[in-house]
């Protein structure tokens, strides 16, 4: 399965409710490679299976979507 770029972002209304180590949690997740990270969101490379598993683990406080091009 091909790896794609995904954005994982804390929902803006949940920023005070998310655990501090959420980026480390993603970094430790197998099949997901972090490309860039800030305190609000991370960009990762992952396949569909891995990202679904990660979404299940992170819960509803996060938005996860594929990287979309803008011009």
């Amino acid at each position: 399965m091909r790896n794609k770029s995904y954005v994982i972002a804390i929902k803006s209304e949940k920023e005070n409710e998310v655990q501090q180590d959420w980026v480390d949690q993603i970094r430790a997740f197998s099949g997901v490679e972090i490309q860039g990270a800030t305190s609000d969101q991370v960009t990762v490379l992952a396949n569909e299976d891995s990202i679904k598993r990660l979404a299940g683990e992170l819960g509803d406080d996060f938005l996860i979507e594929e990287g979309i091009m803008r011009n």
Partner: protein
Amino acid sequence: MARFLIAQRVADKKPEPAESRTTLNKLRVAVAKVADVVETEDETREEDTGETLILEGDPVDIEAKRKELPADTFIETEKLRHPGPFHPLVASPPLQEELTSGLGATIELNASSAGAPVRAAQVMMISVAFRGGFSNTTFGVTDEKGRVLLTYNPNVWVPLGVAVLPRSRAWPVFTQILGQRKLDIVLPPLFRDGPLGWWHRVLGLNSYSENLGEGIRVGVVDTGVGPHPYLSHVRSAGAFLNGNRLQTPDSTNDVAEHGTHVAGTIGARPASGSKDFAGIAPGVELVAARVYPGGGPPTMESGPTTNGDIAQAILTLARDEECDIINLSSAGPMRSRVEADRITAALNRGTLVICSVGNGNGLPIMYPAAEPVAVGVSAVGPTGGVPFGVMDMFSYPPQPDRFSFAGFYAPNFISVGIETKCTGPGVGIISTAPAQGAAEVPYVSMSGTSMSAPAVTGALAAILSRDSTYKSLPRNRERSSYAWRVLLRSARTLGLNQQYQGYGMPVVQVS
């Protein structure tokens, strides 16, 4: 019912004409009950050898009949064939004089403006293939003498036209190539009668004040800004690339021209007496966030950006930089929930996000401008407002309903839809471009909804800078809602369909 062909095998035998006619009649009788014979003139001709019959009948019946026909008879559905026209130019050998350099032929182009060569201009020659009709673009850059040689393979391509995009102080031009081998292109010099241009005046600004916009902070999410002497006041919020934030000293230097043009339209501060065009609200505090990596092809030097980097830049400018308005002149056809979330978060922090609706040539409005939480800005042009023959003029639309009584038109490049909140001047906008040396003060003309969004951003900043109520509001939803209401109340209809103009164009009414 379908059409079929019945034919007797002839490849390995040579039937006499009389024998063929007998066979044909037998076949005709054999199929008479299940199919109609389609008579043609050929079958009635005396010299007809009669090897073929065309029938019209039910495929099931015809298939059943196949067994009764002689073994040396074919029966198959009639198949359509299309002609492959031969074009004499395809096979013609190239003339000896065309094989001078490069891939086969060369066109020499000399660009000048106001009597001087146009140096370092980007040149794009559009060609079409003899076969297939697909197009190709050949790139070049003019040298010190304003000259460039464009080579192409004359066995494959027919040059149709060439676009010359000057780096500064001249209008971009597109001209046809009608078999010429040498082109001398004269680019009209850009207007230089600032600090106010027509785009200031249509927004209600008839006198220049360098303080207009004071007290308002505007974020520019784009390709970067500058360097440019009239934009030295722009502050950097860093570059947001592939999920990372870079904050080196030059991280927001422009990697194309786009962001410098956008920032200049909002808040350029030209030297006194220079007659260069000013920003619409030169008193604003500008904060730049670069989201484009650069290194793209000549048609898109900025390279593409992504939803993630735009979302992070919006959040940073709203939350950490406390911008009042963010201008985003970037768009795409796919919706992003992360962008929508960040624009909502910005609204909740008192920041209004103004987005270009996109240059979709009549396709639906792009994202994030189409989000209900974003202010989607379309573009209008001034009828007859740019010199004849310049590239910006090619934005005239064919539809009569796109021309307004007020002397404006909705250009052919805009994306269209009811999500449009308002419109602004977006054709032939003359603004700053990145300088490549300390002595340079480059200006270029650009068209697009990328240009109308900052015009509206500047107009709103100008209005809000004179609004004490707005300035006293806390940084929350109340503040951004107030700014939104002020913007829509300031809009005046241009008489165009709402899908083109939204509520109309904002008019600044400040003393």
